[in-house]
């Protein structure tokens, strides 16, 4: 189980709160999407899970334990992290990039090699890519390597920070649905950040909407569209449907019946 309990974080000495008294949970095996505009604090909130950011106040639990217990690097080796800028190591081959965390954990070379081969299959990259350098790959292929690297050490938890945000629509859709399949197959717990409501609705089981450091509402997509949700949340949740209707209208497909 993942939980934030009353966490706050300020980057300007308390003048403004990037994350403001947030309490939130994600169940084991769940797929939680945190949605919000740029600057709403969603990245800050998620980086508290692998201690790329330390909260000023409050408690963060991963697997039922407070994350501040051991050294940060031990925690990070147990949590997969995929982000928009990808951050592949340009001086290492694809195989070395994927195998980096298992190597840090001291796995035997032959086990790492097997794992890398398996991951290339999982993210649907040809085995021949193992010896290539990251700069010889396309953007979508690079992010597939990024996902493989995050999954290499068999983490139970994966964090996706706008992981598909920089990709073209076709690649993005393919990679996102591939990831969802992996999530189910490997029984992962995933926390995804996105500013794209449609992406969140399509992939996640549960959603949390953030604005100016606070969680305005959380629940399933259907719950958030209901009358109890605040106006901003309802407005936000209505946008995919509005877009879909306009698309149908412009393409002459008649009125959508949702």
């Amino acid at each position, binding site marked *: 189980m993942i939980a934030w309990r009353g966490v706050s974080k300020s980057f300007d000495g308390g003048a403004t709160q990037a994350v403001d008294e947030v309490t939130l949970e994600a169940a084991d095996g769940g797929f939680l999407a945190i949605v919000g505009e740029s600057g709403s604090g969603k990245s800050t909130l998620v980086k508290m899970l*692998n201690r*790329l950011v330390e909260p000023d106040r409050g408690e963060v639990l991963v697997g039922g334990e407070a994350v501040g217990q051991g*050294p*940060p*690097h*031990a*925690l*990070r*080796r147990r949590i997969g*992290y995929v*982000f928009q*800028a*990808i*951050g*592949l*190591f*340009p*001086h290492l081959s694809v195989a070395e990039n994927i195998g*980096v*965390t298992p190597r*840090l*954990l001291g796995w035997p070379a032959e086990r790492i090699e097997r794992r890398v081969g398996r991951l290339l299959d999982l993210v649907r990259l040809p085995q021949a890519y193992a010896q290539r350098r990251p700069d010889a790959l396309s953007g979508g292929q690079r992010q597939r390597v990024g996902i493989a*690297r995050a999954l290499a*050490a068999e983490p139970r938890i994966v964090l996706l920070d706008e992981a598909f945000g920089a990709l073209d629509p076709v690649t993005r859709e393919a990679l996102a649905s591939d990831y969802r399949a992996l999530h189910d197959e490997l029984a992962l717990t995933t926390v995804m950040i996105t500013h794209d409501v449609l992406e969140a609705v399509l992939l996640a089981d549960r959603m949390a909407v953030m604005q100016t450091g606070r969680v305005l509402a959380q629940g399933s997509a259907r719950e958030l569209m209901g009358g109890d949700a605040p106006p901003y949340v309802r407005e936000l949740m209505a946008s995919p449907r509005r877009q879909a209707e306009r698309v149908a209208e412009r393409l002459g497909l008649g009125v959508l019946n949702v």
Partner: protein
Amino acid sequence: MSEQVRAAFALLPAYLAGHVALSAAALVLGLLVGLPLALASARIPAVRLPALGFASLVQTIPSLALLALFYPLLLALSAAARAMSGHGFAALGFLPSLLALSLYALLPILRNGVAGLTGLDPAVVEAARAVGMTPRQRLIQVEAPLAAPVVMAGVRTAAVWVIGAATLSTAVGWTSLGDYIFSGLQTENWVLVLFGCGASAALALITDGLLALVETGLARRSRLRLALGGAGLLAGTVLALAPLAAGAGGPKPYVIGAKNFSEQYILADLMSDRLKATGARVVQRSDLGSVIAFRALAANDLDAYVDYSGTLWTNVLHHADTPPRPELLRRLTAELKARYGVTLLGPLGFENAYVLAMKRDRANALHIVSLSDLAPRAPALKLGSDLEFLSRPEWRALVGTYGLSFRAQTRYQPTFMYRALEGGEADVISAFSSDGRIAADHLVALSDPMGAAPSYDAVILLSPHSSADARLRGALLPLVNRVPVQAMRAANLTVDRDADKLTPQQAAQALAKAIGR
């Protein structure tokens, strides 16, 4: 011509060994200090500004001055160390050169190190943290390899600077390829100057090429390039240092000093040859400034060198009076022994006084034969001097006695001073009475009827530790009172003349033959 090149090649192993030993040590020390400092500067902004500021400041100090400043500093440290522990260290030669050049190497290493480490893609650094690297693993596995090409570019710059500036270490008594340049400049031996420049440039280019291999090896992660570059650097260094190793292990060599003009080179070679004839090992420290040479001798960094009685009397002992020649020599011997423990072995037999000289026809036309005749004419005349004359007490004594005041005063390297007189840029120059060019260039030395300047007997000085050294005394005593001024002038001229030049070493051999020693 080919004879001069052959002579230059004969000196190459010793000069190159000194140059490479110094440059390599300075570069390694620069790296040992620069890389951790670059790391600290990249991590801690509070360190970055002062560190880069200091390194930039050092770079603005002229390299020759930086080298020269370390000598008195180390001399004081050595004296303090001797007082505390009983052991001093050599303040001349290697140490001041090493420290100055390491400081020089610091800026490019530091600047590129900081640029390399702070210029990394933030996404890669974040990924390194997120995959679970400790700060140390992040540095070794990600940051260092990615910053390496930029850092290596800085190391290459540093190496080229250090190898170029190492030629200046000759001036503080360390043998380097600069020995060619300094002595060539003094004796107008342009072949020697070019040879020194060429050798130093070739060394810099080869080193830069090998470091470039290492750089591209790091950038492309090519083991082959890395190995080739590294092995080339190592092999080159070992090969160049071989002459040093061959000389090591034997008895401690004698160190003979020389100031920065032809006569001093010849006399240093004359003394060295006599010592070598006894089977002793000898190294020379050439191109020392007047005061540095005496300090070095008093501190036992030199074993022997030739200085001039009047110079010692006024510049070292700071006397203002000018006693007659025998009395000056007697008192000088006693006071040097008492105050510095330095032994004045004896005079060589000739004087090399500072004299003011003019072209003979010009002096005749103006009816000038003495300094008294010169004084009323001086406001219309231009004086050319060597680099130190105008700062010396002898000059102040002449000005005080005769009321000399020239239209203009310009300092030259001695060689160029004679050229200035010849070309009309100077009307009067501060010549040396033992200089062969006075006769050869048809100059007249103006007399000093009021005796304002002291006598300048060339004298052999021995350091405190070597004062009782039987082999040294035995080799040098036969020179006392054996070198007449005509022989010295002739020897000086063979080195200074334009055509058919001899090297100081050849001139020393000829002089030895001429005086039967």
